[in-house]
Each structure stands twice: as structure tokens, then as C-alpha cells.
């Protein structure tokens, strides 16, 4: 993997140059929170952002979009007008989140709508310093080795820039004049010192060791009923979770003729209707069962299937749930703590 240097004062100039390839997005402040917004004006870019309300998945599987249009004889997939996008400021944990979504959508049953957007979205990672809700060190998602096109590591007055893909290389070549290629020993030292310092900044530790076993032992635990009583079933946790992939489909037909579109929207297993099937039967009638499913999926089933948790320690559930149900509190409760 190639590593380059970019002086910080050149960042905006560089991002501005990338517009020849696509639309540029990055973290911008909205009220007291952050979102990934379009950077028409680069002064809006806020590199100190910790977590956006919605993760970067919103670009790859938007909350609501049309998959295809149809009439009585044919259908036409809507894959043509997807723009090239560059998303700058994606933190390491979120890139791990993308790798998890890739498992859902690119492997056994490739999803063209996700795949096409993933291909056309350049991921420009950015290192971060954790706050008291980040626990990416616990989930081992605080560094990235793949899943990005460029990764920027913030070191005082410059960035060390990892080139992670051939697209990343192309993007560097757009403004090669801004980058320095001679990485010196002191840069490596600087980087290693930064790493040690950053590792020491993780205040929250959520130990997920042996979680599948702990979940199994807790299958009939009253903890789930307590959580079910408390859960508002608002689904916000699923919306903001970078690894939640579920969606719903609905056919929007015109009243007077047989033409229409198939719309895809984010869904959540926290909703009662999620497991509703023909005949009015429901696999998960009780709210407690639904809360259990969400956590079983993240912290047990995914580990059994892929060898790691479907949690990247980004802290969005901690930041979002109005009644304090999140990976931190649930893991604690399952281990017998209050």
C-alpha cells in the first residue's frame, strides 16, 4: 500500500480538485450534531467531527430510493443516474461497517443497487480521536487495512495518506503536485507515537469476548423482558447503525394505469410488522423478542457466521437511544451488571 503526505493547508484545495471526478461530501455541523453533507462550500467541512447522525451507508443504500420502474411488459432498473461521489471524513470504524455491509450485499447475493453505489462512491477515510461513547478499540475496528480508497491520518500539520485502491490512486493523481512521496523515518516515528497516544484515549471498553456464549446462556433471561418493557420500538437504533442492512419494498402503482416503481426503504426488526407473515402470524410478537433478535444478530449470529461482531463500536446507539438501550448497556446487563 502506498503512503503519501499531504500538508493540512492543502486539504481543501485537494478536495476542491476532486470535483472533476464527482460530488464531494464530508462531515458538516447540523445543529449540535453532524451529518455527511455535500461540500459545495468547503469552509463547512468540519474535520473534528466524531460521529454523524446517519452513517455512510446512507450513500450506498439510501433510506428511500427507487429500484426500478415497470409497466405491464417490462421493467427498467434505476442504475444509470447514480452520481460519482467522494465521501471524505469516514472514520476507521465506519469503514469496518462498510466491510460488513459488503458481506451482506456483495457476496452471496450481490445487490446491484448497493454494488453500483459502492463502486461509484470513493471512501476517503480520516483518523479520529475517540470520545466517551466510542469503543472501537473493544471491537478492534479502530484501524483500517481495507475497504477505503484513501485514508487520511491526522498528524499535527500534515496527513499521512494511505492509498487503498486503484481508484484511490487515480484520485491522488488528479493533484499529485499537492502530495509528497518521500516518507521519512521521523514520519513513521511520529505516526507510531500518535497511535500509542490515540490508543490510550479510549475511555469506554465494551468487552465482547465470548459474547456468543453469553448470549446463548441468556436466551431466556428476564433481562430481555426488562429491555422489552423499556424499548420504545422507535427503530432509531437500526437507522443509525452502520451495519443494519434491512429494508422493505413497496410497489407504487399509478391509479389509472399499470405503470409504477418499486420503492426500497429502510426497515427495522424492532418493528412489530417486520416479522409479520401471511395469515397474520408473527415470529416476534413481543417487543422483548425483537430487542433480543437485534442483539443476537449483532453479537452472536454474526460472530458465529463471520468470526467478528456486527458492531463497530461507533457509539451511535449510545448517542441515539432515548431510553439508553445500546450495546454498552445491553452487554453489561447480559453479564449480570446493572
Amino acid at each position: 500500500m502506498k503512503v503519501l503526505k499531504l500538508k493540512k493547508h492543502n486539504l481543501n484545495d485537494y478536495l476542491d480538485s476532486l470535483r472533476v471526478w464527482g460530488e464531494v461530501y464530508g462531515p458538516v455541523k447540523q445543529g449540535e450534531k453532524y451529518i455527511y453533507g455535500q461540500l459545495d462550500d468547503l469552509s463547512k467541512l468540519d474535520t473534528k467531527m466524531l460521529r454523524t447522525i446517519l452513517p455512510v451507508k446512507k450513500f450506498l443504500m439510501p433510506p428511500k430510493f427507487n429500484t426500478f420502474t415497470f409497466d405491464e411488459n417490462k421493467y427498467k432498473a434505476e442504475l444509470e443516474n447514480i452520481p460519482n461521489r467522494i465521501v471524505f471524513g469516514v472514520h476507521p470504524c465506519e469503514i469496518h461497517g462498510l466491510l460488513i455491509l459488503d458481506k451482506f450485499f456483495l457476496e452471496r447475493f450481490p445487490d446491484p443497487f448497493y454494488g453500483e453505489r459502492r463502486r461509484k462512491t470513493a471512501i476517503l477515510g480520516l483518523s479520529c480521536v475517540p470520545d466517551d461513547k466510542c469503543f472501537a478499540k473493544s471491537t478492534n475496528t479502530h484501524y483500517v487495512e481495507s475497504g477505503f480508497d484513501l485514508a487520511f491520518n491526522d498528524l499535527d500539520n500534515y496527513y499521512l495518506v494511505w492509498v487503498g485502491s486503484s481508484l484511490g490512486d487515480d484520485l491522488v493523481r488528479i493533484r499529485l503536485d499537492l502530495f509528497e512521496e518521500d516518507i521519512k523515518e521521523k514520519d513513521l516515528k511520529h505516526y507510531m507515537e500518535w497511535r500509542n497516544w490515540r490508543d490510550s484515549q479510549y475511555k469506554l471498553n465494551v468487552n465482547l469476548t465470548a459474547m456468543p456464549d453469553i448470549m446463548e446462556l441468556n436466551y431466556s433471561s428476564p433481562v430481555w423482558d426488562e429491555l422489552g418493557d423499556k424499548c420504545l420500538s422507535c427503530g432509531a437504533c437500526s437507522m443509525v447503525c452502520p451495519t443494519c442492512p434491512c429494508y422493505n419494498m413497496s410497489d407504487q402503482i399509478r391509479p389509472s394505469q399499470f405503470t409504477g416503481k418499486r420503492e426500497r426503504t429502510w426497515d427495522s426488526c424492532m418493528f412489530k410488522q417486520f416479522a409479520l407473515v401471511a395469515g397474520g402470524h408473527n415470529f416476534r410478537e413481543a417487543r422483548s423478542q425483537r430487542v433480543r433478535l437485534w442483539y443476537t444478530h449483532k453479537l452472536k449470529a454474526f460472530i458465529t457466521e463471520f468470526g467478528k461482531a456486527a458492531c463497530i463500536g461507533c457509539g451511535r446507539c449510545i448517542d441515539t437511544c432515548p431510553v439508553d438501550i445500546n450495546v454498552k448497556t445491553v452487554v453489561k446487563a447480559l453479564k449480570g451488571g446493572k
Partner: protein
Amino acid sequence: MNKPKVGFYNLSGCSGCLLTILNCENQLLDVFNGAEVVSFLMAQSNNVEKELDIAFIDGSVTTDEQEEFLHELRPRTKKVVCLGSCSCYGGVQAMENEKGTWLKRFNKVYGKKPFKVVKPFESKPVDAFIPVDYYLPGCPIDADQFLYNYARLLRGLPADVPKTPVCLECKWHENECLLLKDKLCLGPVTSAGCKAKCPSHNLPCIGCFGPADESNLTSEFSLLKEKGYTFPEIERKLRLFGGVKFIKQFKSLWKKAQK
């Protein structure tokens, strides 16, 4: 193929739901071409009252005349669809329901007056009188949700009105959570479909789409209580649009909470 015969009717309410349909200017031809609209007082002349495939009812029931109309309508229509929170839940005009007698409340506002034209009573949803097949809530209804379901119903498909909470659509818009900002927001207990209009303008949800599927009122109550809201404050908000459905739900909670 014969087009399905439909009728649009208005009981007590502002008719805003029917107006929402007429405001769909780009789809209006679709709405009228897709069916044989036999009765739509707000939109056309020469209405006839006959056998129907679908009757859409806007407004709540507040007079004996309306009650009689519903009993006359039901046997001649295959499906009855409630449009808007008045016909679904009783509407804003049901916010004081079950608080003492209706007549006492009426007299307090209007004085003691004889009823000459019709005999009025406490605002009730349509399903208090006749069986209802589908409910499209909202104050007013959402145009897209109506058009989607209208097309389905014309083809004999069941309505599809997911009663997921407002929070779902609110998060799609990347709004800051108003509950976390200690606002009295009814988002988690209110049905979506509105595209989270109010929270997207930084205004807390006031519940105009009525209860969500399995609203966890108990948890919403204790959360709001923790934030310093009193039960009368919360009840007032819930009563505003939630009508009889919410009142039924929180009555028992109320008793428990006051203990």
C-alpha cells in the same frame, strides 16, 4: 373492464383530507380516471348515491344525521376507508372525550340551546358505528400515502399503511432527536406517514397520525416524567390528536401511574 365505483364523503371536520386529494394536481387525472367517482361533493356536481366498491370517509361522527348516513352507506359499499385522524380516531374534536358529560361541555361553550336541526353528540370515529376496512390517518392525510393506497384499493389489494413510529422517517431526515433535547415529542408513539414534517422543522411531534403499531406508552410516560413533564401535560398532548384510541390506551396507565 368496469372501473371500480368510489365515493368520497365528508362528516365533521375541516375537509382538509379531501382537499389534500384535490391538491394532488399532477395526479388528479389519475385519481378520476382510475375509478368511476360517483360521489365527491367537494369536487363535482351531479353526484349519485348508489352501490359502491369503496367509500372514503373524512371527518368524525357528531350528529344523528351522520350516524344514519353511515348505516345507509355501509350496506351499499364493499369497502370503507377512513381518511384522516377525525374519521380514524375522532379527531381534534374528540380531545376532551370522556371528561364528564358531553352536554355539560357543550353548554359551557355554547350556552344552553335547544337542538333544532340535528341532534349532536360527542365526537366519535367512524368505527364506533360501522365496521371499517382500512384506516389512513393523519391531520391531514399524506398525499403520497393516499395515492399509493388508492391505487392498491382500486386493484382490489388491501391497503398498506405501516404504523411504524415517526422516529423512523425522522431519522431518515437526520434530525436531532428532540426527546434527547428534553422536548415533549410524541414521535416514538405516533404513526409515521407524515414524513416527519414537524421534527424536521425542529418542532416536537404532536401525534397527528395517531398511535403507532404497539406504541410503548408506558416507557414514553416514564421517559417524559424523568424529563420533568407532568401527567396532565403529557395527557393534553396525547389527547390532541390521538382521540379515543389513545385515551383507551392510557386510561389504565394513568391509574397505575397515579398510585
